[in-house]
């Protein structure tokens, strides 16, 4: 019996008074992988930002229930502590802050929230060694400043490394495949697959079916004009690859 992880109901949101999400519904159980596809401007990245709590977006209606708790007013850091992770489409550079220090601060802040002692340096470094191997992160990158001077592929790999370190309940991969060559794509997908368990779930936001060859989704959803207009299994992604989105849009209009 699968357990509900997140339930999004009638979600509507604005940015600069422009409506982006217009009544989005989605349920995700633990252990599932969901792919969200859709044409440019359909609201895919908005959905990931809203779930992560970016306050540039104003939630005007609906609810987001995460692990039995309404989170639409919750701060981004609290959502993170409770197990929400967003792998950014464009990971941000933080000059002068080493990857390691960044992650240690993140973990300790979470520990503090749960009233747990800071992680001892020895355990932390052991964890870093394990997790970076899992995602094939170059040893040198761990000590370099967060994403500074990283190649596109290194940045994405670093996102998955951070994901491995934080061990989230819900991971949202926002176009993680963009800008990756086929080898990097395999490595990143491999990392994501290794992190999958019956306790967590993954949302993969992508334009292309290609990524879904490596991260196989249980469900595929098509987002259009801020709503999910079609859901199916992985065969839907293949169908989209062949036919594009127009046939769905027409359906919707009828």
């Amino acid at each position: 019996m699968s357990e509900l992880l997140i339930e999004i109901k009638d979600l509507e949101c604005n940015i600069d008074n422009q409506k982006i999400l217009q009544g989005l519904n989605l349920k995700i159980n633990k252990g599932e992988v969901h792919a969200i596809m859709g044409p440019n401007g359909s609201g895919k990245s908005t959905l990931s930002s809203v779930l992560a709590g970016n306050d540039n977006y104003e939630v005007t209606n609906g609810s987001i229930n995460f692990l039995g708790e309404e989170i639409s007013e919750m701060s981004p850091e609290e959502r993170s502590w409770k197990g929400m992770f967003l792998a950014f489409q464009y990971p941000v550079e933080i000059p002068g802050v080493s990857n390691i220090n960044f992650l240690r601060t993140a973990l300790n802040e979470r520990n503090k929230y749960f009233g747990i002692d800071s992680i001892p340096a020895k355990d932390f470094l052991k964890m870093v060694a394990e997790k970076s191997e899992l995602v094939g992160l170059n040893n040198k990158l761990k000590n370099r400043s967060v994403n500074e001077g990283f190649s596109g592929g290194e940045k994405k790999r670093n996102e998955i490394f951070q994901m491995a370190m934080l061990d989230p309940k819900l991971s949202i991969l926002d176009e993680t495949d963009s800008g990756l060559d086929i080898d990097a794509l395999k490595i990143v997908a491999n990392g994501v697959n290794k992190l999958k368990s019956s306790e967590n779930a993954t949302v993969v936001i992508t334009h292309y079916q290609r990524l879904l060859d490596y991260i196989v989704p249980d469900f595929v959803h098509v987002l259009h004009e801020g709503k999910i207009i079609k859901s199916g299994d992985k065969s839907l992604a293949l169908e989209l690859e062949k036919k594009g989105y127009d046939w769905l849009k027409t359906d919707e209009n009828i």
Partner: protein
Amino acid sequence: MSYTEKELKEELDNKSYEFGFVTDIESEKAPIGLNKDIIKLISSKKNEPQWMLAYRLEAFRVWQKMSEPNWAHVKYKKPDFQNISYYAAPKKKKELKSLDEVDPELLRTMEKLGISIEEQKKLSGVAVDFVMDSVSVATSFKEKLSELGIIFCSFSEAVNNHPDLVKKYMGTVVPHTDNYYSALNSAVFSDGSFCYIPKGVRCPMELSTYFRINESGTGQFERTLLIADESSYVSYLEGCTAPQRDENQLHAAVVELIALDKAEIKYSTVQNWYPGDAKGKGGVYNFVTKRGICGYRSKISWTQVETGSAVTWKYPSCILKGDHSIGEFYSVAVTNNFQQADTGTKMIHIGKNTKSTIISKGISAGKSQNSYRGLVKIGKGAKNSRNFSQCDSLLMTDQCGAHTFPYIECENPTATVEHEATTSKIGEDQLFYCMQRGISEEKAISLIVNGYAKEVLNKLPMEFAVEAQKLLEISLEGSVG
């Protein structure tokens, strides 16, 4: 980072300004105003020899003919120099032979400042010369240092015990005629530190002095003279804290460094004078002249973290006189609310193959104004000399200002001078990225700012680096807009 946000919160709840307390010690104070009689009073209070008094009076004569400089990018109400008391000393009951004899109230103050002398002696090997309202009251490690022939004492002691050294070097780097504030300081300086490292001696510990303004309305006129004899090495730390005050306090210090042939001096400062309240009321005026002179193959390195003061006017400089000498300046200057800082350095290349490096990191928040002003001067004879300057500004709000005024004067065609400058604003996307990973906004700001300033913070001795990080965090509390 061992310092957690929780600790910071607690600290901020408990006190609005970290070191904003006043020590209740009886003190002896000169009447307000400045004239020859006051200078004579200061000199006699300190049992000074005649030559010292003559120097003071000459400086006073020069000062009277000078006027306050106006070129800095700061605006403030000029102090009324006749409305300041120029001397205050804690009343000494008797000569102090050990710490047990020190006023317990004073010891408590030192503890609040984080300098338990006993502990420092045992744990960190730092000798502390504690300057409070101008008179040194506790000095430790003196014996250990004196075994090596190192002299580390208050300026007044040096005047009496080592007059030859003082006479030979005082005013050679910063003459009393140099500028308005150095002239004032030369006339009325109350006390300060003196340090002499003999030939070939490597000072085994970081020397540190904590300066503190404590008496309301007392101008603080410190004077530091540091001489590193041939092939010696010393690292000197200076930390400043001041109690919270409504009225403006004037601080006009003079620091002179002399690095003789092949000597090296590392001078680090963490400055945290009271910056005024959030509305711009009160705060310390910090008008400081710091300069060092380098002999053959010697090196002077200034590192400063400036977070305090309402108005800062400060340019730690190097005169690279000896061939192959090296000057360095690493600075982080933070301004918040209504603070104004005009700070930078002067690198004067005179000798051949001289080298200088300038790394300046300005951080502006609130409605503050933060300026870098620097001069790189390559003299006619400074063949193959090199300078690299990097001046970065980080803006935290859209109401603050960051300014860069680099001056380059080059009289030798074989010299290489490089200047780089950047301005950036702390990004919402950076903050969101951190927050998504579970790092709260305040912590994220501290992380980003510390990362930005890392190049400079890395130059600080370990114990200072930690303190400096705390200060950056406290100074920028609630500053993103």
